[in-house]
């Protein structure tokens, strides 16, 4: 996938580019809005990551000009401004999503995936991994043919992990998408840790192949790994 990053903070831009390249994308970086627009006119991109506070031409102007010129590519705004009005302004100006800095990189990856899922609804994720499978209609989970007893919250959690299988899921993402929280607070992190721990015990304890892994400091990931 071809991604353009318009971000004046060089360290952050380099880190984002590096991370996206590891995720098998081609990434180009522009440090000013003017340069970014020029690159957009000359090249073909599938996605634009746009900072709002740029020297010279600001992000919103870039976005408006882009949309006026008829470019329809998905745009994800990255900004340290977190007020609701600012988000609304960004989205109203033609952005597809808005991510507040500082963000977890896993969250950025998840947002990008979700942007493309929106465009291609047919591409569904298989609702199973290794010998674990989930029945969304009956809300039941089984591993190696054995039915697992999960609470409703644990089921939602597993479903979310399955959708994002192979990718690291952060606490922020879980708080927002599974717990549907609008505010962040410390006790919720504890709740999430406990809940993920319980889910792990239920799906992994009795099996040699572990599926749910903790990535320290980042979050958790559901993937097939034989060793541990």
């Amino acid at each position: 996938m071809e991604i353009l990053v318009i971000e004046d903070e060089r360290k952050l831009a380099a880190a984002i580019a590096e991370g996206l390249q590891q995720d098998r994308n081609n990434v180009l970086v522009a440090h000013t809005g003017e340069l970014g627009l020029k690159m957009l006119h000359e090249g073909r991109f599938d996605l634009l990551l746009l900072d709002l506070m740029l020297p010279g031409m600001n992000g919103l102007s870039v976005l408006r000009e882009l949309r006026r010129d008829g470019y329809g590519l998905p745009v994800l705004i990255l900004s340290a401004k977190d007020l609701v009005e600012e988000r609304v302004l960004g989205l109203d100006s033609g952005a597809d999503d808005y991510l507040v800095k500082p963000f977890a990189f896993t969250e950025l990856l998840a947002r990008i995936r979700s942007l493309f899922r929106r465009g291609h609804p047919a591409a569904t994720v298989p609702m199973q991994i290794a010998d674990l499978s989930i029945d969304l209609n009956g809300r039941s989970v089984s591993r190696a043919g054995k039915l697992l007893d999960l609470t409703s919250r644990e089921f939602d959690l597993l479903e979310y992990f399955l959708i994002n299988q192979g990718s690291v899921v952060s606490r922020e993402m879980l708080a927002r998408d599974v717990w549907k929280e609008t505010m962040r607070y410390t006790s919720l992190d504890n709740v999430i840790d406990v809940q993920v721990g319980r889910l792990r015990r239920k799906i992994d304890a009795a099996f040699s192949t572990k599926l749910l892994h903790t990535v320290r400091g980042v979050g958790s990931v559901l993937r097939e790994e034989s060793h541990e």
Partner: protein
Amino acid sequence: MRFGPKSLRGRLTLWHVFAFGIVLFVYIGCATLLQYWQLTRQLNHAEIQDMVTVEGLLYLSPAGELRLHQEYFNNPQAHLLIDRLLEVRTPDGKVAFSSDQLHGRTLGGLPFQGEGQSGFNGRKLRLGDGTNVYLISHAHQIQGRPFLIRLAYSTGPLIGQVKVSLGILLVVLLFALVAAGFAGHRFVSQVLSPLEVMARRTDQITASRLHDRIPVECPDDELGHMAMVLNGLLQRLEESFEKLKLFTSDVSHELRTPLASIRSVEEVSLQRALSPEQYQQVIASMLEEVNQLTNMVNTMLTIGRADAGQLELHQTVFSLNDLLKDVIGVVGILAEEKEQTIHMAIEGNPYVQADRSLLRLAILNILDNAIQYSPSGGSISVRLKYMESPSHSVELSVEDDGPGIPEQSREKVFDRFYRVEKDRSREASGAGLGLAIAKWAVEAHGGKIGFRPSAGKGSIFYMQLPRA
């Protein structure tokens, strides 16, 4: 735009002099009029007396001409009467006698309406050559023949006298005004001097010297009152500056701690080559600290916005029971982990009008607090009941099984960054902002938050909210 001197002292002095001047001026005017009136009356009396004398001295000569007896001129006071103007006319208006002083002038023309008909008629008159006189007329019979006698004095000496005294009074007025100006200026300066002291002292008070106070000399007068009001303002300012200082130092402490650990972990690990696994460990531990910093900055941003009044309440009407169930559904798992039991005692189904997510956060923080401070295997009671006073409100209380709140912490429990157990790790108890946020959220909805000791050794935290 205002005119006159800029200083209050100058303006007050000017007003003082102006008012004083007007009063004196009116006084002088009245005094002069009175003097004029009295002098005119005196003149009138003198003329009447003179008229009687003159009437006695007039006689008809054998030839039928009207004459004045010569002894009149022998009168030792004759020189006083030198200005007397005398004219006698017959009833048909012909001049029968004219004194020498008239030098051919006449005292008015033909008899005017009603002249000489009753007693002495007096009137002012201007002669042909411009001399102002005061004239009296009297009808009189001389040797059986009727005559109209007119007698007039020039009013010149009288006016001159009035002018002299008026001049003296005006000079006195000028001196009085100058004196009043000086005295007024001195007086106003004296009255205003405490104001200047206050201004100077206030000017010296800066953010670092907020403990200074303005001296109060007479607490009962207006200036003393003002000084006390200013002192009250300073007191409040000092208190909020103190709070701000404390908050800033707490914030920097809370931010420094994770920064310090990031820094030391990084420095130590850069001192020698590590295996990739070890590097992963280092980076992961740094990331944990960074996450914590991020959470804290976000929370402080929320508090800062709340303080600045920038946080809008998105109010809806909802059931408190539903919200409570929702909250317990989230944090209940933490109680389960500690094998604690949550007892619920719910009365009715009260609805409130509030910002759901804010109120949810408040309840979450209080419940989380209770779970943290209650021992493993303990029990927590959540009660929801209608209140009698204030009426139309509802109380939600959470009773914990913990050690209770020590005496010295009671006032500070809801303060920012305050932690009853200082040595608790930050991961376990957060930054000490939970209850501060809960307090703010409840108070923003016009509610009340507090705690009381429970029957056991724990505490009961309660929030009282108006019902929808």
